[in-house]
């Protein structure tokens, strides 16, 4: 029942933080994942450093200090978390529209991502998101 009610509601999340620098990235992805699971329509506008969250060439690494191999360390890459969220949305029939700010992508050179459903956009798209959303949560960087 709740999922049907939430399907009528749209939440936009606005992200700024790059991966691995702050717990805000983790909290943001936790919130987005939960919103998808609960049946909300979700918009994400990623700009500034957050455009790197989806960068294709992120790689795992081992941990020689603690003697852990690549497999043992299983270091998470944010691109894989986002891919999982998008796949979850598809399986549930939830709507998620993730836009990468083109200006921020260009200046950082993170042109490549391989996540179906993610697209390049601009601040004009953020304005459209705000207009169509029931609410907007901006998670600002420090």
């Amino acid at each position: 029942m709740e999922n049907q009610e939430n399907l009528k509601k749209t939440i936009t999340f606005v992200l700024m933080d790059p991966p691995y620098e702050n717990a805000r990235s983790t909290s943001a992805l936790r919130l987005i994942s939960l919103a998808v699971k609960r049946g909300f329509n979700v918009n994400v506008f990623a700009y500034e450093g957050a455009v790197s969250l989806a960068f294709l060439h992120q790689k795992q690494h081992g941990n020689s200090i603690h003697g852990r191999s690549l497999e043992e360390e299983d270091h998470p890459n944010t691109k894989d978390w986002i891919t999982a969220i998008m796949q979850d949305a598809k399986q549930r029939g939830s709507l998620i529209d993730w836009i990468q700010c083109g200006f921020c992508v260009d200046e950082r050179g993170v042109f490549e991502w391989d996540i179906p459903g993610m697209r390049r956009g601009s601040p004009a798209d953020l304005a459209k998101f705000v207009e169509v959303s029931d609410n907007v949560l901006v998670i600002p960087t420090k």
Partner: protein
Amino acid sequence: MSKYLLIESRDPFSTNDVYYLFSLAEKLKKHENDVSIFLIQNGVFSARKTAKLELVSKLCSQNVSVLVDDFSLKERGILPNNIVPGVIVSSLDFILDSLANKDKVLWH
């Protein structure tokens, strides 16, 4: 009267800004708004009994709802019995519910 959810992600030992947010909550409440504070990430440090801060207990006494993210508590090894009385252990569902209800939600 409006409903506000103020999300505090920072701890008061690293930045004075936390005091400003708590002061904002107090003032909004005095203006007869419905106010909640949700502590997440290092913000949950404000809610420890052993922190010997009065920030949170003061807000609770003024009927500001203070909630903490259960995941953030676990990450930091803060047990529920070390939380200031009156603080509610909660989850991110609370944030989504507030957003869905069109409350005014601010992340600090």
